[in-house]
């Protein structure tokens, strides 16, 4: 468990996240080239993408709509906005400036809730264009300096991005991970992005500082190249510890950009504040201000789906599970909560319904093939102890393979019939007689001995005995 509790001497972690997401538009932010990952390099290009002389940007309306969906889902205010140029030289930045939003972003002042009613402020969620992708060959660093040559793929250049900037409200690496996971769930739910961290369509920059509560925030370092939720936690833990060690050793934290190396589990200096670019932001003269009409904003808001948190709450209430637990998160993330609702609607046992779906339907998509009534019937068989949980699992496999069917018939076919309590008791007695040593140890309080007894019973019943029921009988016999 990575938690700021590991920071010694009362140091408090402070984290803010800048998350870039590529929008799921058909075409690029400012041109008609396809926005598609994985194509042959430099095939989705045109004069605008390459920044050819004379080419001009034209704003993609769908990108604006997806950005508004993100903003509204994050409780932001959608406002009239403008575009700026951020000027810097780099080979994969074709115009030598990035079109982005500066002092008037599209979405401002939102928030995102984490488990335990933790509220993380969202400062802004603005539109901008992505750069091309550079690959450096030769040299050891994998970076442009020291490499023999570099290749650039401009397919990614001009892909629409939304940058979501949180306030520095995050206090533990666990919260940071939850924030990224929740944000990702929201992005998927509203259809704004495929949010694949491994493909780079969702990228995190992490701002980390440490301070003693009651004193001003410390100097922050920005960590780049954090490409998985797990890395977010690891990078923060490493960096926080590095800063604390530095300060306690008499040093000071420099404001700088650091690179996360996932293999070594460390951050290292990428550039210091002194050699940071002066981006010379100014209003992009090739675009006009964007003022989404209220009716458009209202329309986008009305079309928003129910968000993951609300769906998890509803599912948890329906099934009697923890709203912040893994089952609720996973099932909602896969979009299978409606299906669970149908299973329960068909008389299924609520708790078993959600657990079955979580455990066995990972590959099934939002609408599993197994008819809800069939899965409902299986949960009832198990609930009523007509089959054991082990048998239920086998039947679940059968049900998925067959794409549905009569579970009672399937149980009969497999020869499953739950043993009644009388038969079970006889088997337990037989096992006690056969394993007197184990029984004695169990009675003396050695819980491990239980396993040998249950094992013997399962063997003699050829798996038909319900492990839980057997244990209960053994426990009651020991008390006597």
């Amino acid at each position, binding site marked *: 468990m990575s938690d700021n509790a590991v920071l010694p001497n009362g140091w408090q972690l402070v984290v803010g996240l800048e998350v870039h997401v590529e929008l799921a538009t058909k075409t690029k932010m400012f041109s008609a080239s396809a926005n598609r990952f994985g194509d042959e390099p430099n095939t989705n290009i045109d004069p605008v993408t390459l920044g050819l002389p004379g080419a001009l940007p034209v704003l993609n309306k769908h990108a604006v709509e997806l950005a508004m969906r993100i903003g509204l889902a994050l409780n932001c205010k959608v406002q009239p906005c403008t575009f700026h140029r951020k000027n810097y030289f780099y080979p994969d930045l074709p115009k030598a400036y990035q079109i982005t939003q500066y002092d008037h972003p599209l979405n401002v002042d939102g928030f995102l809730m984490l488990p335990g009613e933790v509220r993380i402020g969202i400062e802004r969620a603005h539109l901008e264009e992505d750069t091309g992708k550079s690959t450096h060959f030769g040299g050891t660093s994998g970076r442009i300096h020291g490499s023999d040559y570099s290749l650039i793929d401009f397919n990614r250049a001009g892909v629409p991005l939304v940058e979501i900037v949180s306030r520095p409200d995050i206090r533990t690496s666990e919260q940071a991970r939850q924030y990224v996971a929740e944000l990702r769930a929201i992005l998927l739910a509203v259809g704004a992005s495929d949010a694949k961290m491994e493909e780079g369509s969702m990228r995190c920059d992490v701002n980390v500082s440490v301070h003693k509560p009651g004193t001003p925030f410390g100097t922050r370092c920005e960590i780049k190249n954090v490409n998985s939720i797990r890395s977010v936690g690891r990078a923060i833990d490493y960096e926080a510890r590095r800063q604390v060690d530095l300060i306690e050793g008499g040093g000071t934290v420099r404001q700088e950009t650091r690179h996360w190396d996932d293999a070594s589990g460390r951050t290292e200096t990428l550039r210091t504040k002194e050699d940071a670019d002066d981006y010379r932001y100014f209003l992009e*003269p090739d675009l006009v201000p964007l003022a989404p009409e209220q009716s458009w904003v209202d329309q986008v808001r009305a079309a928003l789906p129910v968000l993951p948190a609300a769906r998890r709450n509803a599912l948890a209430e329906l099934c009697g599970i923890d709203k912040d637990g893994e089952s609720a998160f996973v099932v909602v993330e896969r979009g299978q909560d409606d299906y669970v609702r149908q299973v329960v609607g068909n008389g299924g046992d609520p708790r078993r319904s959600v657990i079955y779906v979580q455990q066995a339907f990972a590959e099934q998509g939002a609408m599993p093939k197994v008819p809800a009534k069939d899965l409902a019937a299986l949960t009832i068989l198990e609930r009523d102890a007509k089959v054991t949980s082990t048998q239920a699992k086998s039947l679940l496999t059968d049900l998925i393979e067959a794409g549905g069917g009569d579970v009672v018939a399937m149980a009969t076919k497999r020869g499953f019939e739950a043993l009644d309590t009388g038969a079970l008791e006889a088997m337990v007695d037989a096992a006690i007689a056969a394993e007197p040593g184990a029984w004695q140890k169990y009675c003396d309080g050695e819980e491990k001995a239980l396993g040998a007894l249950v094992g013997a019973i399962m063997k003699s019943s050829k798996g038909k005995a319900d492990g839980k029921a057997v244990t209960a009988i053994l426990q009651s016999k020991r008390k006597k």
Partner: protein
Amino acid sequence: MQKLVEIVAGVTDGSLTATAVVEEHLGRIKARESEIHAFNLVTADQARETAARIDADVKAGKKVGALAGVPIALKDNMCTRGIETTCSSKILQGWKPPYDATVVTKLRQAGAVVVGKTNLDEFAMGSSTENSAFGPTKNPLDISRVPGGSSGGSAAAVSAGFAAASLGSDTGGSIRQPAALCGVVGVKPTYGTVSRYGLVAFASSLDQIGPFTSDVRDAATLLEVISGHDPMDSTSIPQNATSLVSVLEHGVKGMRIGRVTDLPEGCEPDVLARLEAAFDALRKAGATIVDVKLPSLQYCLTAYYLIAPAEASSNLARYDGVRYGNRVEAADLNAMYAATREAGFGEEVKRRIMLGTYALSAGYYDAYYGKALKVRRLISDDFARAYKDVDTILTPTSPSTAFKFGSKTDNPLAMYLCDVFTIPTNLAGHPAMSVPFGVGADSMPVGIQVLATTMGEQAMFKVAAELERAS
């Protein structure tokens, strides 16, 4: 020399062939281009092919376009598919765009015959074409004098009869000033009237394409063709082209013409005398001359030389040797950038990139670029007040007639002052045009500038047509 409208009429009714027209112009180019240097490239073969196709269409009874058979020259900062587009800069020498600018597409569709790409001050930065990397253009009326700039090649091409019309771009006067100096008509339309798609940017918020022609009617005809909304240019005004030819005979009776009482100093007396003559002519034709004040006019030049270089510093950053244009190899990336840009850009371009970079830098933005934007709002406010009272305003186009080569090259500020009357309309986004109106003390032409408010082209053309009749 034939007017544009005469060529269109003749080619359309079959009394002229496009081929004969283009040969006549190519003949004049052959005779005088070596001394004038109006062109970076003459596209004779393509021009002959286009002309032959138009003649075939006419013969076959097909409908031909509004510019059928008109030889047109394009400033070499407009992208032409497969045809070298250099901006008169070494950094783009040899670059062939994979696409046509929207204006070029419109010209081709209208049946115009592109005869070549004209010389300019490098990246349109200058007032004499002396900043071209490929040598200056001479004024066809006196080859010891500059043709003006930056669209000097386009102005010279029309003045010398190399083309019936040409297109230039105007960021701070780059159409109007060379038109004045070469004795032709030059129009800077309202910002957003003509698509900038495919125009290599100098200062995006100021750049506007417009025509050079030998008279006002030709200018109106050509402007109607190239105007209109373009979805590829987000700053393009979403409305159809304004009818201009229809108003040329309306006269100026009852119109109110502004005389600026606080005009910046430094204008030659012979030029000012022509301005007075222009007011007299308009008064005689029934217009009322009204005094107007534009107090912010005096700050415009300074504001322009912050705003335009600031945008240019960003627009020209893409010439980095990575994807296209010329590259100078060096040890590492930053050295390659530096060597490429050092070798590729001329002195004036470098000066403006540095000025603009400085004006936008952290700590200086508010004092320079930010303040310049305030002046931009002030001059717009001044104009708005003035246009409550008048339909158009008249000023000289340029403080002087065409000057001698080398007379201002050692003093950038003296060169910048050439644009003192033309810059304000660019800052405001308004239309303005230059009409020849007699000659100065040196017998070189004087241009009178007619200014109007946003989308005020009809009023502007009425006054220009009246001045032309009176000259």
